[in-house]
């Protein structure tokens, strides 16, 4: 099935307008080095590179490194002046650091002059936030990223349970289904699967839970810091409740959940071993892959659970939702879907030769054009999720990918609900956000889940660690950038 789709894509490419005739052989002899993470994301770039080469003559050399090394590899290459990397396909979060060094090319004029990219079709969040910094475009979005909840529809129906809408309900469902044989192999399976490995993606899932209690008044309120003085929103009841949730959900997870990242939990869900799962959009496309999925027709996706209580920033206490405290609540539940990571995209090295920049832009443009991206977002192994408006409704695109209309409505509906939420959480995009999240937060959560420290010590570790970083980097500068990135008034 996947092969057929790839072949169909290649055939479609032959007839593609825009690039083919105009730019054929335009880049003969030009080599573009593209760096990204190993595995997903690398796959579509690598697979489509030969077709692009045939069309334009440019040689695309894809270099892949583990996700945890990617940020520093790109930074080292550009900051040291080595400049062996012409294009980086990376996280929008890192853009602020790369721009601070002046390493990223301003793509605004190129995007404005490129009708084939169909920029109007790109989701507003990605077009206006992920791709831009200070009003300029530095990145071409290739992937849409939102955290969602996945569930086993069949198991919930069988047990007479509703789809969880709050974190408390999530735990109740996980507890009720944990230990049942969910895929008929005779072994007990798990109520909840969340990637909690250190130095992987676990810190994003913490924000899913905390954010639904710290941010209730819209995106510009922010979920990480107090926008008045950059105090971390950590030493409060919301963060402590999120820690309780993480610990409790571990009881209903696989025994080695603390050593699982999303590349482990995805196959677990697809093989029918998890009743509930938190992840990006990838799980949906993996779950419809007949080669790897045992849950075809049995799964569903929903907006991330929320909370009926939210944080009063002044007192640090949780208060009940009402029209004033939770203006965007749905049925009394405050949802704050998290645009974790913000979607992979490609940026160009400002120090590259002009001809290389042209070829690099042409490649990124080619990758994001609907002829290519419409297929890639339906294939699980690409790591690309829908980000164009036209990809977010049921069409032949999804039908050909093997998704039923009901599944597509459910899956795309969850993405739409997340993307259109006025209370969406924007990921942290202040300078050195890696140290705030991937070092301080990730390490403290890992120590808490491993039992090294208790909840109070975890709160202190995160709060003090973030304060120390803010003071080290510069409180006023960080506050100004934080407020600007979330659009705070």
């Amino acid at each position, binding site marked *: 099935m996947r092969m057929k789709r790839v072949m169909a894509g290649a055939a479609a490419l032959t007839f593609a307008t825009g690039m083919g005739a105009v730019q054929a052989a335009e880049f003969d002899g030009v080599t573009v080095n593209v760096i990204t993470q190993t595995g997903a994301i690398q796959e579509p770039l690598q697979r489509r590179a030969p077709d692009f080469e045939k069309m334009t003559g440019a040689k695309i050399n894809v270099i892949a490194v583990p996700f945890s090394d990617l940020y520093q590899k790109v930074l080292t290459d550009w900051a040291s002046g080595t400049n062996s990397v012409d294009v980086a396909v990376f996280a929008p979060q890192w853009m602020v650091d790369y721009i601070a060094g002046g390493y990223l090319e301003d793509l605004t004029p190129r995007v404005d002059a490129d009708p084939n990219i169909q920029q109007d079709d790109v989701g507003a969040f990605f077009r206006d936030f992920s791709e831009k910094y200070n009003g300029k475009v530095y990145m071409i979005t290739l992937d849409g990223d939102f955290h969602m909840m996945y569930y086993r529809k069949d198991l919930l129906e069988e047990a007479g349970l509703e789809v969880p809408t709050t974190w408390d309900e999530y735990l109740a469902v996980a507890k009720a289904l944990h230990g049942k044989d969910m895929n008929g192999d005779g072994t007990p399976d798990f109520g909840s699967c969340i990637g909690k490995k250190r130095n992987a993606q676990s810190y994003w899932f913490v924000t899913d839970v905390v954010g639904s209690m710290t941010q209730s008044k819209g995106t510009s309120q922010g979920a990480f810091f107090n926008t008045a003085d950059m105090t971390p929103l950590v030493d409060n009841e919301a963060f402590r409740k999120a820690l309780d949730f993480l610990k409790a959900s571990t009881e209903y997870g696989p025994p*080695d959940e603390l050593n699982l990242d999303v590349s482990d939990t995805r196959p677990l869900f697809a093989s029918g071993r998890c009743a509930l799962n938190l992840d990006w959009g990838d799980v949906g496309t993996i779950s419809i892959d007949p080669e790897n999925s045992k849950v075809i027709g049995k799964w569903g996706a929903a907006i991330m659970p929320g909370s009926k209580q939210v944080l009063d920033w002044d007192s640090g206490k949780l208060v009940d939702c009402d029209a004033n405290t939770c203006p965007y609540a749905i049925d009394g539940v405050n949802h704050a879907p998290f645009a974790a990571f913000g979607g992979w995209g490609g940026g160009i090295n400002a120090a590259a030769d002009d001809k290389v920049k042209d070829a690099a832009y042409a490649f990124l443009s080619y990758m994001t054009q609907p002829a290519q991206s419409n297929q890639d977002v339906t294939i699980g192994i690409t790591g690309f999720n829908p980000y164009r408006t036209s990809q977010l409704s049921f069409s032949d695109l999804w039908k050909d990918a093997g998704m039923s209309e009901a599944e597509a409505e459910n899956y795309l509906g969850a993405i739409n609900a997340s993307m259109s939420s006025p209370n969406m959480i924007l990921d942290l995009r202040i*300078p050195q956000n890696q140290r705030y999240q991937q070092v301080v937060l990730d390490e403290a959560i890992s120590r808490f889940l491993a039992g090294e420290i208790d909840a109070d010590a975890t709160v202190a570790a995160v709060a003090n660690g973030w304060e120390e970083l803010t003071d*080290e980097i510069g409180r006023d500068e960080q506050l100004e950038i934080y407020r600007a990135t979330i659009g705070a008034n």
Partner: protein
Amino acid sequence: MTASATTASDTAPRPGLAERFDRHAGRLMVLPAVVVILCFALFPLIISAYLSLTRFALAPGGFTLKYVGNFNYKKLLFGSQQYHLLGTFKAFGVVGWVLVAAMAALILFLLGRYFMSGRATIFGTIGRLITSSLAMGLTVLVVATIVAGGVPGTMVTTLIYVGVGVAAQFLLGLGIAMLCAQAIRGRNFFRVLFFVPLMVTPVGIAYTFRMLADIQKGPFAPLLQSLGVTQWSWATDAWSARLMVLVGDTWQWTPFMFIVLLAAIENQPRDQVEAARIDGANGIQIFRDITWPAIAPVAATIVLIRLIEAFKIIDLPNVLTGGGPGLATESMTLHSFIAWRTQDLGGSAAVGYMLLFVSTIVCVSFFNFMVRPARRLES
């Protein structure tokens, strides 16, 4: 004096190019190696020392390094990162005090014996005081974290990898070498077989062990499930996670010990072994009085090489557990690496220098107090 020297230089014929080359041949031959070492070892060492005293920041067109003095070291040893490098301490219990007192007594005994021997020198005394201080400091650290119920930091975790790992690899390597030195059928096959792990890249070994140790899908999963082990995982317990890292490290490095010790055992004096057998000596006596003295210098040297290497462990904990659960399996090299990849270059360099400091003292002490005596034992 001056006059005669002038006269001599006036009268002596100037040496030819070939003669001058001959005279400096030794230095010229060494020069390329010295240049390479200067470029690739000393230069980075000096630069990283400077980095450890700075704070890195990105700036338009490049980066800046702001001098911050010993801030990065203070942070690691006494500040907000103390728990990470040294650990979280707890008050000593009775066992802790006994261990610390025992170590203090041992150090005092050894120092006293040295001073009483009449062979004490200034450099010898300084060296012994440095070694004693580090040994005492590390003992207090281990007692305050592991024995007293605190949480070990990356320094103690690294010491566990070094101490337990190298000891296990040495004992296993020696045992296998003793077996393969016997006249058994197919021993050449076993020699090659035991040597294979050493030729595999460490990252490959780490991924192999990650797959082998996967309790959901790994080859031992059915066995564990048949034994009723479905709700336990090595990866969530600090000590079992460290043990898994040690198992992988031991699997890789035992062959190194094995192959070198095998060569040493096969070179031991055969006539002495045969004479001892004729005199009725048993295996233990032969090993103690003939084999061990013969292989001791080699054994001490390879342990030293492994010590140096073991301090740098990173691949296995990084791939197997990412340093988790918590800080349980994070070595100092991984600690430094994680700081480096998130732009904290100063902090990363400071951790690197702490590692250099500890490993240098341990290895130099081992050389002076173990390798040298072993060589004397042979002679």
